[in-house]
């Protein structure tokens, strides 16, 4: 008879795994260290009056422990170095992540305040904090430029300021918006993206919060599950806007990344756009090719949260219809509660497809090198 009374699960050594690129990671930040990058005026205001930001968290119940997996406990000593060390062991090393794309630092709530100058100062603070504390200390980590999307000229200034940093790989904005992203109001942002060869990414969040429009055309929704469903509709509206307002005709090198809005729904949506374009093409004659072609050439999708069809045989045809082999990027959404485990979230697929989704598509999009080694591996 054996007897054991340990409290931890013993780590298992599984088969070797190739390294991957994870395209949606939310690193927490050390508040005081971030605030030290702010001009005195805002720092003193925050000390006296608080952050002055509307938040999604106060409106909708984002699951688990403040939105984070319950078994993740980031150190609370207020030091960026401790947060980084925890992240390195609990995520980067554990899943053999060769490049980790942070989808901005700080709360997207920055993009919901009417005070664009304050938003710009906060974006600068978070971007600088990220560069000094995370990017400088781990070459695996790449980040996205947080922009004050309320004011596209200020946003462009911020992109010009940090956009050429070698570990800054994209520009990020929240799904919640004042206008759909195809609107010409946003052109200064796209001009700056093109200048620095950075994709423009939209990440779900902040729909209906602060200055952003209600989360659906039918108005505000109540429960968090309805809110999550609404995000897909909003992403649909942005995608159609980008295509039919002619953004990709005006900025032929611009890449658009849709983050955390799910993925398989995109297939029938592309079919619908193509079908309607056949009928309505003459109304937007600057749109030269079927919408599916714009999607194929300009749009990338991250995988999480994956919709898994109950009938697994539907999975691959839908993947094919959304150009997954060239346009889909794996994302875990770590450390959020609806995290996708890189080893367990996808149904089986062939090695070539796996390699594109878990590495090569992202490497091509973000200009990252090939795998260090094809043989090096971690365990599940």
């Amino acid at each position, binding site marked *: 008879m*054996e007897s054991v009374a340990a*409290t931890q699960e013993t780590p*298992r050594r599984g088969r070797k795994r190739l390294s991957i690129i994870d395209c949606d990671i939310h690193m927490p930040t050390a508040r005081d260290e971030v605030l030290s990058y702010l001009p005195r005026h805002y720092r003193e205001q925050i000390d006296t009056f608080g952050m002055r930001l509307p938040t999604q968290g106060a409106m909708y119940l984002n699951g688990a422990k403040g939105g984070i*997996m*319950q078994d993740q406990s980031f150190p609370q000593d207020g030091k960026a170095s401790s947060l980084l060390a925890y992240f390195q062991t609990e995520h980067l090393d554990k899943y053999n992540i060769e490049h980790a794309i942070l989808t901005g630092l700080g709360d997207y709530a920055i993009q919901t305040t009417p005070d664009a100058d304050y938003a710009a100062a906060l974006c600068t603070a978070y971007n600088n904090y990220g560069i000094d504390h995370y990017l400088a200390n781990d070459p695996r980590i790449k980040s996205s430029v947080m922009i004050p999307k309320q004011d596209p000229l200020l946003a462009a200034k911020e992109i010009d300021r940090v956009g050429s940093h070698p570990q800054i790989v994209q520009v990020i904005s929240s799904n919640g918006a004042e206008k759909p992203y195809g609107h010409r109001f946003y052109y200064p942002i796209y001009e700056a993206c093109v200048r620095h060869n950075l994709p423009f990414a939209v990440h779900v969040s902040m729909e209906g919060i602060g200055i952003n429009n209600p989360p659906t055309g039918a108005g505000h929704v109540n429960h968090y599950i309805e809110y999550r469903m609404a995000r897909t509709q909003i992403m649909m509206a942005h995608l159609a806007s980008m295509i039919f307002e002619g953004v990709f005709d005006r900025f032929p090198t611009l890449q658009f990344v849709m983050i955390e809005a799910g993925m398989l729904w995109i297939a029938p949506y592309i079919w619908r756009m193509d079908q309607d374009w056949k009928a309505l093409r003459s109304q937007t004659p600057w749109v030269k090719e079927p919408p599916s072609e714009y999607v194929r050439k300009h749009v990338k999708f991250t995988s999480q949260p994956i919709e898994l069809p109950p009938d697994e045989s539907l999975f691959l045809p839908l993947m094919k219809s959304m150009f997954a082999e060239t346009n889909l990027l794996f994302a875990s959404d770590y450390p959020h509660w*609806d*995290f996708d485990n890189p080893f367990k*979230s996808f149904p089986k697929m062939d090695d070539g497809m796996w390699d594109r989704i878990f590495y090569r598509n992202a490497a091509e999009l973000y200009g990252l090198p090939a795998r260090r080694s094809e043989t090096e591996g971690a365990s599940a």
Partner: protein
Amino acid sequence: MTKYLVGKVGDIPPGGKKIVDAGSRSVGVYNVQGRYYALRNLCPHQGAALCTGVTTAFVTSSGPGDFAYECEGEIVRCPWHQWEFDVKTGQMVVDPATRTIAYEVSVEKYDVSVDDEEYIYVHIR
């Protein structure tokens, strides 16, 4: 069938749980109102350590705004995506075909015990 010693009866009071290693497996042992249940500490969804999630009740309702609680202490919610599993069977509540393994648990006096302590064992086949 191998039996693994989990601890003394007093180690897991009603409402309590203990996560133990039984051979190569991690197992969560629960005391629900004096009866013991054991689940494999592995979520069938994406592999989280299931038993580290909260132990709670099953919430029911007659309509919006109304919340009632059944099966207090018999539901474990996964620490990742919060799927709910029945501690007694290891089955996911809304989809019983999705399950983690439930093991048999017994309470016995230790083989060569001189004291009167009762010990909890989990039986793994």
